[in-house]
């Protein structure tokens, strides 16, 4: 038997040992199953940022047909009319209790001003902006409602003023959504959740596997055996890469595609190949963490400390481009930052290596560096 095949067989044997250990650790194994199945389903039904039945109250001091016409346009799915309030104090109370989040205040003389057409008829809109984003959306949808209402009056008044409404220039902007034309929320949520939890798994599993050996002292046994430090680490990484690939396959083919119709517009082979690279990169990070901690409790805390910033600041859940420039620069060190681009681009945008090469290169480079650091620290500690 050649040296090379011997070397590979040893790594394979060790990797199988890792898989068996994971299988026997029912708690951790259950967690792996949960992450790639139920967790994805929960995430898909979770948060939507679309306006949904925002409760609207009306303070109508005009009691005219025009005022009623305007207020009845606040309809589901975006808004839900909660009725009229008599006084400003009552309105503020309802806003404070979050029973209403928008107040439309129509002043006395609204109808008259509209008919005269010499002054703009003003309507006050009070929006609860404690959720800044949904507050902004509510205001802009309300503006669209008021705009459409205004346009109808404008047509009438123009005709009266002797101008043909059809002969006035108008710029129409047709917005077309690409990649997710119906803004299907589960597509976004399941992909975001999958990349997030993959990251947690890929860092935690190798770290836990290595620290467990440190805790139990079995690491010494491995090191006196005819195995090199590289083989020991490589076996752990390979086992966890295999688990991750299997998990992604289950999540993608078992849940995301059959239940939510998440498309795969690019090459799936490429996606799985890059998932393997990504898992390898994170495993390197996990091993580095494991060399710093003494027991599994410490590992868990350190993993959290490192994983939290990675999964929140890499642009998975929040618009990456809105973050300050220094933070964006710092996040190029996060493997997830690059993988998020890759996952969305392959699944939704149908991209190939020709456009993704820079992300792939950065991710691979990070992986090599992290793995080298982990190996160096591991050797210094034990060999």
């Amino acid at each position, binding site marked *: 038997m050649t040296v090379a095949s011997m070397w590979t067989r040893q790594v394979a044997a060790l990797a199988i040992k890792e898989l068996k250990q994971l299988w026997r650790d029912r708690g951790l194994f259950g967690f792996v199953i949960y992450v790639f199945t139920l967790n994805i389903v929960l995430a898909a039904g979770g948060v939507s940022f679309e306006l949904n039945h925002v409760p609207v109250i009306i303070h109508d001091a005009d009691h005219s047909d025009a005022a009623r016409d305007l207020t009845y346009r606040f309809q589901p799915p975006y808004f839900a009319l909660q009725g009229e309030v008599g006084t400003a104090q009552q309105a503020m109370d309802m806003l404070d209790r*979050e029973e209403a989040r928008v107040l439309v205040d129509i002043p006395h003389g609204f109808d008259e001003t509209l008919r005269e057409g010499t002054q703009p008829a003003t309507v006050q809109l009070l929006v609860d902006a404690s959720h800044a984003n949904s507050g902004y959306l509510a205001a802009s949808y309300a503006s669209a409602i008021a705009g459409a209402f205004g346009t109808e009056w404008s047509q009438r*008044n123009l005709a009266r003023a002797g101008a043909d409404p059809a002969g006035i220039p108008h710029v129409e902007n047709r917005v077309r959504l690409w990649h997710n034309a119906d803004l299907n929320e589960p597509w976004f949520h399941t992909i975001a959740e999958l990349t997030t939890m993959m990251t947690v798994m890929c860092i935690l599993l190798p770290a836990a596997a290595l620290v467990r050996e440190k805790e139990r002292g079995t690491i010494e046994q491995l090191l006196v055996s005819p195995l090199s430090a590289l083989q020991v680490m490589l076996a752990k990484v390979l086992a966890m890469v295999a688990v991750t690939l299997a998990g992604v396959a289950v999540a993608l083919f078992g849940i995301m595609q059959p239940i939510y119709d998440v498309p795969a517009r690019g090459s799936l082979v490429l996606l799985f190949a890059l998932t393997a690279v990504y898992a390898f990169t994170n495993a390197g990070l996990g091993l580095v963490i494991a060399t710093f901690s003494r027991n*599994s409790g410490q590992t*868990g805390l350190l993993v959290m400390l490192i994983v939290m910033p990675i999964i929140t600041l890499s642009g998975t859940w929040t618009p990456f*481009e809105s973050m300050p420039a220094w933070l964006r620069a710092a996040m190029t060190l996060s493997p997830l930052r690059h993988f998020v681009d890759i996952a969305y681009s392959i699944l939704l945008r149908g991209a190939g290596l020709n456009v993704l090469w820079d992300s792939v290169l950065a991710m691979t480079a990070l992986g090599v560096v992290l793995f080298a650091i982990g190996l160096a620290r591991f050797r210094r500690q034990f060999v």
Partner: protein
Amino acid sequence: MKLRRALAVAYKEWREILRDRIYLLLAFLMPAMLMIVFGYGMSQDVENVALAVLDEDGTSLSRDYAQRYIESRHFAYRGHLRAAREADRLLADGQVKVIVIIPQHFAERLMEGQVASVQTLVDGSFTTIARTVHSYVDAINAAFDSGLRVRFLTARLGITQQRAAVLIQPVQLQVRYLYNQEARSIWGIAPSLMMFTLMMVVPILTALAVVREKESGAIYNVYSSTISRGEFILGKLLPSVAISSVNALILWLLATRFFGAPFKGSFGLLALATVLFIICASGFGLVISFVVRTQQAALIVVTILATLLAMQYSGILTPVSSMTGASHAIARAFPPMYYENVIKGVFMKGVGARVLWPDLLFLAGFGALVMAAAYALFKKRIRS
């Protein structure tokens, strides 16, 4: 139950915490770090979105139109396209998220009083960005459109600009943002992060304190000692509630000083709600610690449940009023939403106990319930 014995457990606990350096560091470092990281990471503001323009008309009017998008602070201009087929590649890469396409004869049609159609391609893969960008684009287009129409009418009918403006847009909507006048998301997020961070860290600290003893076997000393279940639970709880209260104060300072969030209400009311919430969260950690066996498992279970409850079902990300069905019921069954209400109330709205008493009552009730559950779950016998 004797208070003296509970205090002895608490004192022992405190000395152990002092000796475990990583635990100690994390107990005080992790909350502050989480808050700063999430403060930057959770902002749903949509700014700097990469924009490209394809101007097939090339007139001064079309340039003026494109300029409106280029100058907007919401967009980061990345250049002009030369041909429509470049759009595919740019959008596939994700490097450009918005492309405004101005067709030929844009200016010509408008000068003749006709309709000109502009097309905007928006990358929909990140749904929140797409939705917000859609409304930015509509707003910019509407502003240009009404300006153009006013100019046209002024010239055509020989009337004043003001008169023309009323003819074009007879209704004026005056928007006022309540509670957060600048609609700055960090002012809303930073206070909510107090809730999220406490929900995350407090159960971890409590759960680890118990599971550590299970792992090392020290729990058998507790089983065989004369100490009662209540005394043990109280002794475990006191240090973690004390540490967490200090942390809550640090978090409050970060929210108000570092992130500059406005604080309009009563500090005493917030303090009361915070202590109640910490008790709920500690109890939650205790319950988990009695169920799992290893520190690793405790961390994992707490992290998953806490993130789920504190993020998805608390009203941080999306108002509870817009949740439906099961989500709504889940949100109403757990403390995060109620504490979040109190936080929103005292930070932004400046309301008092008159409005917030139901939330305080729920927190107190849940705290009592979860403590009872912990008491029932903790057995001084080894499960065989």
